[in-house]
């Protein structure tokens, strides 16, 4: 059984207009998506800005109201839960945010930031709490004396590691990581990604890894979901997506990654132009009328991991 199962999830944001501020329409940020995350698995959610990937993450945590669909966690539909039952779910699902400058309270010490989720759910004495925080800090490679410092005393990479420590404080099952490294420098990004992998092995975590960086996602995830205009265009294993991308959008995305091999410069550009040409000419083959994305279907019988949104 999957740890998290999302069925036909929809999130609509109202557009208000007119004198009375009535609802005149909806922005369909997420429009009918289904996927699942298994225990210990990392699922990557890739798409460009505005594709709805962050909204998907927020919807799973219950930070935005759903317009439809259901979310099963350990087989139970948590969208029906309110009050106490809901808080048990909140404990097992945590989030790592993108912006390390705004996601840590500048007026709190690191100790209080990391201990906040613990204080909400567990009754620990001061000493026990301090011990837990020190343990958590050491998991992300920081020394215990850092606990009494304030966020501004740290660099971006260290701050993101504090964010990771806070997210794992309650030993969650699933962490939604929303662009955790896109604001960080290359060498620091590598540090944070390595710690995220270590933590996963240690605690048996699952990640929903939201990113626009195909290189990072390939490094981190076994299963990939490509999202475009509020829908999934392609779902598959790492090999499916990178060796055999089928939807024109995925192929465009992969073709636009700059390569670090200068020899491939011309070949890449030619490939990219060919794909853009195809995108223009064969748009109707991949998108329904009005540019909407088709439902996913299994690509071929022999491979049960690879789904593409094609008619």
């Amino acid at each position, binding site marked *: 059984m999957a740890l998290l199962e999302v069925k036909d999830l929809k999130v609509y944001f109202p557009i208000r207009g007119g004198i009375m501020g009535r609802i005149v329409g909806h922005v369909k940020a997420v429009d009918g998506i289904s996927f699942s995350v298994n225990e210990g698995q990392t699922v990557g959610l890739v798409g460009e800005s505005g594709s709805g990937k962050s909204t998907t993450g927020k919807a799973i945590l219950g930070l935005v109201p759903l317009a439809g669909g259901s979310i099963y966690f350990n087989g139970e539909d948590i969208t029906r839960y309110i009050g106490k039952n809901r808080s048990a779910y909140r404990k097992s699902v945590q989030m790592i945010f993108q912006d390390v400058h705004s996601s840590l309270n500048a007026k709190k010490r690191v100790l209080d930031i990391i201990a906040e989720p613990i204080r909400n759910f567990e009754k620990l004495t001061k000493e026990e709490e301090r011990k837990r925080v020190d343990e958590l800090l050491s998991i992300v490679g920081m020394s215990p004396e850092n606990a009494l410092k304030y966020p501004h005393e740290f660099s971006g990479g260290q701050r993101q590691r504090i964010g990771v420590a806070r997210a794992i404080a309650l030993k969650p099952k699933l962490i939604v990581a929303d662009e955790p490294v896109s604001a960080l420098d*290359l060498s*620091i990004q590598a540090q944070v*990604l390595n710690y995220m992998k270590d933590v996963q092995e240690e605690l048996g975590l699952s990640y929903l890894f939201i990113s626009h960086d195909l290189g990072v996602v390939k490094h981190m995830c076994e299963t990939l979901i490509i999202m475009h205009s509020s829908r999934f265009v392609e779902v598959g294993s790492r090999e499916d997506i990178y060796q055999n991308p089928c939807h024109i959008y995925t192929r465009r995305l992969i073709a636009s990654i700059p390569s670090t*091999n200068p020899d491939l410069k011309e070949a890449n550009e030619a490939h990219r132009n060919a794909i853009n040409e195809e995108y223009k000419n064969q748009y109707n083959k991949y998108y329904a009328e009005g540019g909407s994305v088709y439902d996913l279907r299994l690509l071929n019988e022999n491979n049960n991991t690879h789904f593409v949104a094609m008619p």
Partner: protein
Amino acid sequence: MDDILLSINNLRTSFRIDGQYYAAVDGVSIDIMHNEVFAIVGESGCGKSALSLSITKLHNMNYTRIEGEVNFNGQNLLDLNESKLNKVRGKDISVIFQDPLTALNPVIRVGPQIEESLTYHTNMNKKEKRDRAIKLLSEVGMVNPELTYASFPHELSGGMRQRATIAVSLACSPKLIIADEPTTALDVTIQAQILDLLRKLQKETQSSIILITHDLGVVAEMADRVAVMYAGQIVELASANDLFKNPQHPYTRSLLASIPNVGEDLHRLNAIKGIVPTLMYMPREGCRFSHRTPWIDGSMHEENPDYHEVRPNHFVFCTCYKDFYFENEGGA
């Protein structure tokens, strides 16, 4: 040599912090040739943007000190006063900034923003300017240039805005374009389009581009020559081919090893120990990268590091490149 377009000589840019000056760019010398794309790579805080803004003195001079020489067209730009500099800015040397939303004026339509530098630098009449602006907009790939001419920046998407800022910077056909992280704020598909566009325009106009970026992929796609910067100094200077095939300096090699590459599989990425030192605490003596490679024997660094030409036109700073190995590899 007469094919040098711009020659930067021992440039030192210092900022005042609490009454003291700290050098963010510390003795950089480079020559930019005609008709080339020169990339400067480095992490945040390495001084790459400070360097690019120093070329046309765009820093706030109240708390910035710029020493050295920037020779362009037979004059030292750093000696010029504001009004003389303004004759160069936008005309011979123009800048493309990272964030197109803050680079464009939100209350002025796109067209007039392109015309601004034409008004300042040329004697064109109204109609000529308008024609030029529309021609530029179509050159940067706008589908409907007349419509874009009359649009406000907020009506355009991120990629379109960046195209508009490129049109602004191209208005007077500059000889040198300084592109400061031109694609960092954009999605990958849009980034590819903008890079293709810059490359095409560069070939057509035969101008030179100084490309400032932290993305090594972008460098490999665009650049003819590359300078890698660390802590205010250039640590390696080579042609793009040489640099990616045969990186020498420990910093360059560590950076290349920390890219999660689409092409290959690695279980762990190489993370560089420690952090880039902040301006006030930057070590000023010896090899500045040495404290991030503590496993390397100190005697391998030079006391007063200098450039070594390892191959023709491939320069490396400090001698520590000779016996460098990664920590987890073990070594001699």
